[in-house]
């Protein structure tokens, strides 16, 4: 953006209005912000790598966790939805860069349309992420946590299309209700005791009774074998593990515990995708502000659409980060 105030010192090196490296002040500072923000994200991802290396032989397999697609209930479709989200974000990056391009040619109508499409793309992405979170928190099959904090999952060997494979069994199908389970404390039945967090859906005893009754159900531990599959215990070992070590029935995920595996997995999922989603959200807000400025003709009067370019840099950066999150969280 050219300075509109004439101070009479523009010609001198330090007089202001200069563009070192042929980049305007705002654009350069946006780049420096992006570099520092990239370091924040890489710190998150490197910390994720640290924790994963620490538990490298028992880390959850992302393909088994993220298998849901909206409207296709009950089907296991790993990666499809995340791939869709990635495509939406890349697409909205494209409309953004088209808006910048139209801005260079001072075409207000096109900038308006492309900015609008970018905002829509961002909104779809944030909505998808919210759905992804909800599904992740809701959980899938449930599991039992041991005293040592390890997760035990259930399943049985079934033959489908001539191939024998391990199919997960959910705790709802397994548990046999037992009458005298503990009821949740609330404020009305206690003098000192105020209230407690929600109780797990089932007790370990109910799960154990179900496991005894269903003779083909086996327990799967978190440990990975040399082929990268989770270890499945024998029938006797399954019963023994649940009876002796089972402590808590887990369904879904929160910051303390999750049914997919080590608690750090859910923690990093919430922090990394949450931090990224927050960036997308603020990017959408910035885009909306710029969109209205475009509509009102602010940049037309200013004679330059460079603000669109600056906010575009931020938007592309959000896309750039997602490319890495996608790889390190969902693929690798």
């Amino acid at each position, binding site marked *: 953006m050219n300075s509109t105030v004439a101070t009479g010192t523009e010609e001198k090196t330090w007089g202001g209005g200069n563009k070192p490296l042929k980049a305007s002040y705002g654009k350069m500072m946006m780049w420096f912000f992006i570099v520092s923000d990239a370091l924040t994200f890489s710190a998150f991802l*490197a910390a994720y790598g640290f924790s994963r290396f620490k538990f490298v032989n028992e880390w959850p397999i992302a393909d088994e966790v993220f298998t849901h697609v909206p409207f296709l209930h009950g089907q296991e479709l790993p990666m499809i939805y995340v791939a869709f989200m990635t495509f939406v974000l*890349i697409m909205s990056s494209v409309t953004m860069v*088209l808006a910048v*391009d139209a801005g260079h040619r001072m075409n207000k109508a096109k900038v308006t349309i492309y900015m609008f499409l970018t905002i829509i793309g961002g909104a779809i992405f944030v909505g998808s992420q919210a759905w992804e979170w909800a599904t992740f928190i809701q959980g899938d099959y449930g599991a039992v946590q*041991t005293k040592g904090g390890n997760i035990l999952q259930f399943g049985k060997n079934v033959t489908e299309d001539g191939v024998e494979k391990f199919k997960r069994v959910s705790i709802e199908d397994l548990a046999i209700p037992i009458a005298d389970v503990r009821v949740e404390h609330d404020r009305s039945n206690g003098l000192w005791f105020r209230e407690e967090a929600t109780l797990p859906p089932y007790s370990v005893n109910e799960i154990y009774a179900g496991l005894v009754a269903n003779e083909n159900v086996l327990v799967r531990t978190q440990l990975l074998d040399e082929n990268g599959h989770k270890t499945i215990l024998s029938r006797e070992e399954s019963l023994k593990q649940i009876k002796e070590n089972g402590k808590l029935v887990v369904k879904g995920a929160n910051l303390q515990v999750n049914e997919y595996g080590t608690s750090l997995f859910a923690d990093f999922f919430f922090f990394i995708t949450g931090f990224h989603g927050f960036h997308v959200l603020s990017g959408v807000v910035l885009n909306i502000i710029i969109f209205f400025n475009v509509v009102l003709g602010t940049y037309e009067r200013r004679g330059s659409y460079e603000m669109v370019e600056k906010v575009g840099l931020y938007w*592309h950066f959000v896309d750039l980060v997602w490319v890495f999150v996608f*790889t390190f969280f969902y693929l*690798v």
Partner: protein
Amino acid sequence: MAHEHKLEIFRGLVKFKSNTSKIWGVLIFLTIVTIIEVVLGIYKPDMFMHTWITPFEGGFFATLGNIILSPFVYMKPLNLIFIVLTIIKAYYIAWDFMHLRDETGSFRKMIVWTGVFLICYLAFILLQEGGYVFDVYNGEDSLIKRDF
């Protein structure tokens, strides 16, 4: 406002007529890369699931070889492919969508080299430490028991 755009990608192999067509071209390229990633991620071909080189055994030069070739010695080829494809995607997003290709060379280096250096440093230190902590937990003389 005249803006100069460099319109060729793949080191001049493909040259576009206008900036708009370059944008669509890059989109097609990024989409293809993403589709390759997703297909590989779903099917996980067996040939990519085991390392192609086993760690060298022996003296100093074996250790040195393991360090230099560590991506091939310790990493599954599939993961290596994913990381390389990701970096390729990141390159085209930064160079063509964020217009780094059109910036002054020194400005571009200022941004990219700083970030790449610090991120590599951070990743190396944390991953190295994570591997060490794994050994502490799972070594033969470890005093920590977590499976009970």
